[in-house]
């Protein structure tokens, strides 16, 4: 029963602590996952924007070189132009750029792409220098518009990353605070529960110890009253039974002693009465003899003492022994008849 109680209480405490630990781990894991996600997304977005910006810068350089006649082949230029389409597609698929205002900028960028490709197609196919220059300028203008959109997207990405990081830091702060408070509460509750559990064990142990001590001191009337329906209750019941038996045994011994004392009283009183009578007669006979008076007085005192002793035997309350000679023990009459400190005659047996 006690074992089950202890297991239940301690098990609950352990489960509570374990649950708290698991919840803390999950919350922190979730936070870390979000942090990774934000970082990856942000880094991915920043990288995509950077790549796109670089490609457009490269295209602008190619356009200027074509304009100046420094470049006579279009392969690298066309590769870069294709990469712009690919990179802008990847940017469009980026989830963190789906909501406004990033979506508007992405749309602006994508609206420029057909214009850009139309111009570079016309630029590439046109064999007329005037037209080539015209389309080159138009393509450059389209790249400027695209760059503007990309710069805006970059600013939005940076702002988003900053905002998300700030939100995560705030969330982290709240989680740490919450966990700290929760753990404090849980620890306090655990301490209280453990104290209560300890009290559940120590209190009855204390009482049993005190009762055992009292029993050892000969106070057989001592009892332990425990309402617990567990092993301690059983122990208390066993203790009480033992104390009852010891008390009964002591009572029997005392009764026997009293009976012996009565017997002695009865038998000795007659003899002592006769001896006292004879002493009295002797005193009258030997009146005036000093030494003999003294001896007769001593005999009288001894008789009185014998009578007191027998009387005391009738009033023995407990058996208290004292050392005699040769390793033997005898009844300590004085202590055997003494009252308990503070005990009144007829008081009920003390209970622990």
């Amino acid at each position, binding site marked *: 029963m006690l074992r089950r109680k202890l297991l239940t209480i301690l098990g609950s405490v352990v489960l509570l602590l374990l649950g708290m630990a698991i919840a803390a781990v999950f919350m922190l894991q979730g936070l870390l996952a979000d942090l990774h996600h934000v970082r990856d997304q942000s880094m991915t977005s920043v990288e995509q924007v950077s790549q796109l910006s670089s490609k457009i810068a490269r295209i602008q350089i190619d356009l200027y070189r*074509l304009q100046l006649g420094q470049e*006579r082949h*279009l*392969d690298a230029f*066309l590769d870069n132009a294709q990469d712009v389409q690919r990179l802008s597609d990847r940017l469009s698929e980026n989830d963190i750029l789906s909501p406004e205002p990033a979506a508007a900028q992405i749309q602006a960028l994508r609206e420029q792409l057909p214009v850009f490709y139309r111009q*570079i197609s016309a630029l590439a*196919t*046109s064999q007329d220098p005037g037209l080539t220059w015209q389309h080159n300028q138009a393509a450059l203008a389209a790249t400027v518009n695209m760059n503007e959109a990309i710069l805006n997207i970059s600013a939005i990405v940076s702002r988003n990353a900053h905002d998300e990081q700030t939100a995560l830091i705030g969330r982290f702060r709240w989680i740490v605070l919450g966990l700290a408070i929760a753990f404090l509460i849980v620890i306090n509750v655990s301490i209280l529960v453990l104290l209560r559990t300890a009290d559940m064990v120590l209190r009855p142990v204390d009482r049993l110890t005190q009762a055992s001590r009292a029993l050892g001191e000969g106070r057989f009337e001592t009892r332990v009253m425990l309402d617990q329906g567990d092993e301690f209750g059983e122990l208390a019941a066993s203790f009480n039974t033992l104390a009852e038996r010891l008390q009964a045994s002591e009572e029997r011994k005392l009764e026997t002693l009293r009976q012996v004392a009565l017997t002695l009283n009865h038998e000795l009183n007659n003899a002592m009465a006769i001896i006292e009578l004879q002493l009295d007669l002797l005193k009258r006979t030997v009146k005036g003899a000093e030494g003999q008076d003294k001896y007769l007085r001593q005999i009288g005192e001894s008789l009185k003492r014998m009578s007191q002793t027998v009387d005391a035997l009738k009033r023995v309350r407990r058996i208290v022994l004292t050392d005699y000679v040769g390793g033997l023990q005898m009844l300590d009459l004085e202590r055997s008849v003494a009252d308990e400190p503070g005990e009144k005659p007829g008081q009920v047996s003390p209970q622990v």
Partner: protein
Amino acid sequence: MRTKWTILTSIALVLVLALLVILERNGGESVASVPTPPTYKDPLRIGLVPDREIIANRQRTRILADYLAVQLGRPVELVTGASYQTVLDDLRENRSDVAVLGSLITVLAIDRLDVRLLCKTDLVNGGSTYAGVICVREESPISDVSELAGRRIAMVRTTLAGNLFPVADFLRREMMEGDNAPKIVWVGTHDDAILAMVDGSVDAAALKDARLDVWMRENPGKRLRVLARSLEVPESIWVARSDLADVGEQVASVLLRMDSTTEGRQVLSRYGAIRFVPIELDEFRPVYRLIEQMGEAWDKLGIAGPAPKWPGGSEAD
């Protein structure tokens, strides 16, 4: 319970890592329809003159180039010139080995360089030949080329259909002098010529009939009327430097038999062609005739150098 999960998770992680290592060592198989060609020191360089939808065309040509690379056992590079002159210069200066040219530029290449004709392309949209046309809007009051005197016409520089043919026709009709001369509005592509005419910026347009047919199919509500048409000339001609005769033969051989294999037909389909067909110099006679008609007005075309002459000295019939 947790220990059991930890052990299971650890075992799963180890297995996944091992699998990744094995896969990485073995290497993933390429999912491209054409295997990656082996690396050689000298790739085959194909010169391209920019055409409309240049990026899409280049992507299509790249597919064909990858097929050639596998068939020839050497890498193939595309060399896109910023102008027709760049493509010719690349052939002259050995910066390209093979080139894909239009009719007029091919004639220039034959005349100025030592090139060998390999084949022409039979396109899905247009066939293996095309003609130059001069057209107007259906509702236009103009019914004859001669009525274009003083009118605006959209033309495309350095092309047979958009430049050589209309100018030759105007010269034949003696329309190129004084106020009679049509006012030429240069545009970048044949499609731009149609658009300029449809939106009313010009009264007529000179362009390839293949592009006209495609546009009319895509815009059934808008009708255009052809005023004049040239003779048919070859489409998308493949030429090779004569000093690379064996390379040219290999390329021609591969191209001409592409339509006989399943893989070849798939590549042709993605390239936008039905097949490659052989070509003869005689097919360029209409081009030479138009050039002859230009006479001294050849300089007005803005093409550097003298007018090409029929090879062998005799005039084109």
